[in-house]
Each structure stands twice: as C-alpha cells, then as structure tokens.
C-alpha cells in the first residue's frame, strides 16, 4: 500500500462567526513529495483554507486529513508538527529574541531532548543557508534572510508538509532567487500560496486555483498559466512580458 496523501481536504466549508462564508466545499489531495501552488485572487479563501490545515480554524463542514491523521482537537499537537506553516510577515513568525531560540521553539514544544533540539536547529539553518546565524537577533537580518529563517523555524519540526503564505512577497530579485533555490532543494511536500505566477511555474509542477471558496481548476501549472480565459475569469494575471510557453 502506498503512503497516505500528505494532505487530504474533503468537502471543506467554513463561515466566519460574522456570517461571512469563505469556503463552500473544497476538495484537495496533495500526495507525498508533491509541490503544489495554490493560486487565486484576494478574498478567494486561500488563507482560510491554510488555517484549516493545522487546525487553527475548525468547526465547519468537511474534513482535513494530514498523512492519514484527521485534524481534530485530540491530535492538534501532532497535526501542528506535521503541517509547518510559514506566514507572510517574518516579523510575525520570528518572535523569540534570537534566531537559534526561534528555530528551537517548535522542537522544544515537542518535548525533544536538548541535544536533539540543537542538532535540528543546526540542520534547519543549514538547509536554508543560514548557518552561523543562530546567535543573532532577527531584527539584525535582512528581509530575505528573515524569510529564510522563518522557513527554518518550521523545518526544524520535520514537517510532513510545508505550507508557505506568499513566500516571494517583498523580496528583492536576489532574495527571491535564493529562496527558490532553498525551496527547490527541500525534500518535503510543499503547498505554496502565491500571487507570483512565475514563481509558481518555477517551483510547482502542479497548481490549484481557488476562487469564491471552491477549487475551480487543478492541473499542471504550465497548462493553467497558458489558459488565458481561466486566468481572466479569476483575476489572475501574468507579469508584463512573461510567457509561460517560452520558459524552460
């Protein structure tokens, strides 16, 4: 029997307490090792969906399963270990006084012994090319470095799936490329929420378009990005001069 999918979302619907309905029955399956981009206009429900993946939001209709484990109150600690979310603003993600303590935050919450914590901190920082930054306070790092450290803070928990919210936003072109190199080399399942369509094409063979609280398209990224009708219907736009057909 093959491994259960990293993420299985079945008929997920959710309305906020103020009555605003954000999701109307989302189905999504992400297999182990896949890299998937989650595209969609503002207000499509992307963030709401992401917050369901680790049980921050619950209580609507439908079910989320992470590598075979249903997202329920009883399993929350394990679910949050398996689903590593990297939020958009690294200043929200990095709340401890130093980089090292921040990367150690998750492993210590898991109750790991201290030498294992230290080994994981070193390994995670090496994976994002930030070895040697452990003693530095986050506000001394550049924005791109903070974004990469934010990725390390969840890598140190050895997640089953890495979920990134707008990973390329506010990065300069070099920072964007460096992050892409880091992400491409990670041996984990990746779900990337983004407006940056070239970035999706570069990193994710498959894309899912969410609009109006439902999945409206799901397929190879290049196919979706060359479907001009689809893009126009869902307020997705390629940057000026970018042609997905001519990109390697």
């Amino acid at each position, binding site marked *: 029997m093959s491994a259960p999918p990293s993420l299985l979302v079945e008929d997920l619907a959710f309305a906020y307490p103020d009555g605003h309905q954000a999701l109307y029955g989302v189905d999504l399956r992400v297999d182990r090792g896949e890299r998937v981009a989650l595209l969609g206009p503002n207000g499509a429900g992307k963030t709401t969906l992401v917050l369901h993946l680790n049980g921050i939001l619950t209580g609507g209709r439908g079910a989320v399963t992470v590598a075979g484990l249903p997202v329920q109150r009883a399993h929350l600690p394990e679910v949050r270990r398996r689903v590593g979310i990297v939020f958009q603003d690294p*200043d*929200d993600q990095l709340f401890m006084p130093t980089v090292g303590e921040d990367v150690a935050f998750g492993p*210590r919450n898991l109750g790991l012994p201290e030498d294992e914590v230290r080994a994981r901190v070193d390994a995670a920082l090496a994976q994002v090319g930030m070895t040697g930054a452990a003693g530095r*306070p986050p506000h001394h790092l550049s924005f791109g470095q903070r974004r990469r450290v934010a990725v390390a803070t969840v890598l140190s928990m050895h997640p089953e799936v890495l979920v990134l919210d707008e990973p390329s936003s506010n990065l300069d072109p070099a920072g964007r490329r460096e992050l892409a190199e880091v992400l491409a080399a990670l041996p984990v399942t990746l779900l990337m929420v983004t407006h940056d369509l070239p970035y999706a094409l570069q990193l994710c063979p498959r894309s899912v378009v969410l609009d109006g609280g439902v999945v409206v398209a799901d397929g190879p990224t290049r196919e979706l990005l060359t479907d001009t009708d689809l893009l126009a219907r869902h307020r997705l736009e390629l940057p000026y001069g970018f042609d997905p057909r001519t990109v390697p």
Partner: protein
Amino acid sequence: MAAVHGGVLGAAYLAGSSPVHRLPPHLKLVAVLGFALVVVATPVHADWAWAAHGGHLALVLLAAAVAGVGPARLARGLAIEVPFVLFAVLLPFVAQGPRVEVAGLALSESGLVAAGGLLAKATLSVLAAVVLAATTEPRALLAGLERLRLPALLVQILMFMMRYTDVVAGELARMRVARESRGFRGRHLGALRVLGPAAGSLFVRSYERGERVHLAMLSRGYAGRLPGGPAPAVPARAWLAALALPLGAAAVLATGLLLG
C-alpha cells in the same frame, strides 16, 4: 530610522568578556537586588551613614572597574535618576523641624539629611543597576528572571516587548515619514488632531500583529508556556563572586551598626 537600527533596548549593553560579563545573569540580578536592599536598610540619621555610603560607593565602583564599565557610561546611566533628584531638592524646603541657614535660605535640617540620604541611596542603587545593564544582554536578563521564578507570563510579556520594540518603532518612524512627506508639521496644538488618530492606528496595527504572532505560535505547538533551553548548573565560585557585592555592602553596614 537610523536610531532604530541595532535595537533600542540593546543600547545599554556593552559587549565584553570581563568576569562580571561571564557571571550567570540570575546571580547578577540577585546581587544587585541584595545590594540595593542593604543600601536602603542603612539608617539615614546615623552619624556613620556617610561613611557607610562611602564604603558602598567604593564597592560598586570596584565592581564597575572589574566589569570594564567606564565613568562616562556610569554617568550616562545616572540620567534615569533625575526625577528623584528633583524630588530630593524639594525636601529641605518643605520638611518641618529646626532650620539651618544655608546661603541665605532657611532650610529644614531633617529635610537636608533626608534629601542627602535619598540621593545617596538612589545613586548607589542606580550605579549597581547600570553595571548590571552594561554587562548583561537584555535576553540574558530575561533568562535570569525566568530562573528566579518570575511568573512565566510576565517573562513572556517582557520578551515580546524586547522583540517588538524595534518593529513598532520602525512602524512609528514610517508613519512619521509618510506624514511629513505630505507636508505635515507637528509643531502646534492643532497637530494633536492628526497625532491622536496616528497613535490609535499604531495601537490597532500592533494589536493585529499580536494576533498574527499568536497564530504563528499556535502553529508551532505553543501551549501556554515558552520552552526554555537547558539551565546549566552554577558553580559555588560564581555564587561567591556575585554575592561579593551585597555581602561586602552588608559587612560595611554591620561595621557601622557595631562601631556606631
């Protein structure tokens, strides 16, 4: 924005590797607190009070010398004492009792003594605190407070304050630049109508950031307490070195009590 760079709160710290720098932070906290208690416990009206304070001053200056904290740094640290000085200056004028003539002014004798005592005690305690701040990084101080069993919630609040002071100061600076770029000048009373809402919007932004930080913490398994790192055992020698300051001060006080 240049002032923000490098951290507002880190400014008090002087990097170094003196024996005082290397002491565990919670020992230094205990030492400074103990020293301040002894200084405060020294009776103001005793004849030997000034001799005792002289002894205390010698001790704290010795600690500063060992820590490599120079006189300029100590003097700058004393600035925080200014409100106490203002209060102390008032005392000789308002206190009751027999008066003495000083430069043509009739001043209360007991007021003078009380003011002198207040100033001396405040100065000594602040000097000890300056040595502590100059030799201990802010986050090490927090670790020290945690080891001294300060309630975890208070430690977390202090920690977040430390982490986000610069972030909020950065937001404040950007808002100011944005205002002034559109011709705003905050020099008259009417400016309050602009600055009030700006303060409110800074509060709302910070509040929302707090919510996002909380989400990020929950996502990494936060369950109410911050996991600490390992706490290394403290050798008796370190205790002895740290407690030399309050014990020396206590010895000075005891000598005064016995001989006075």
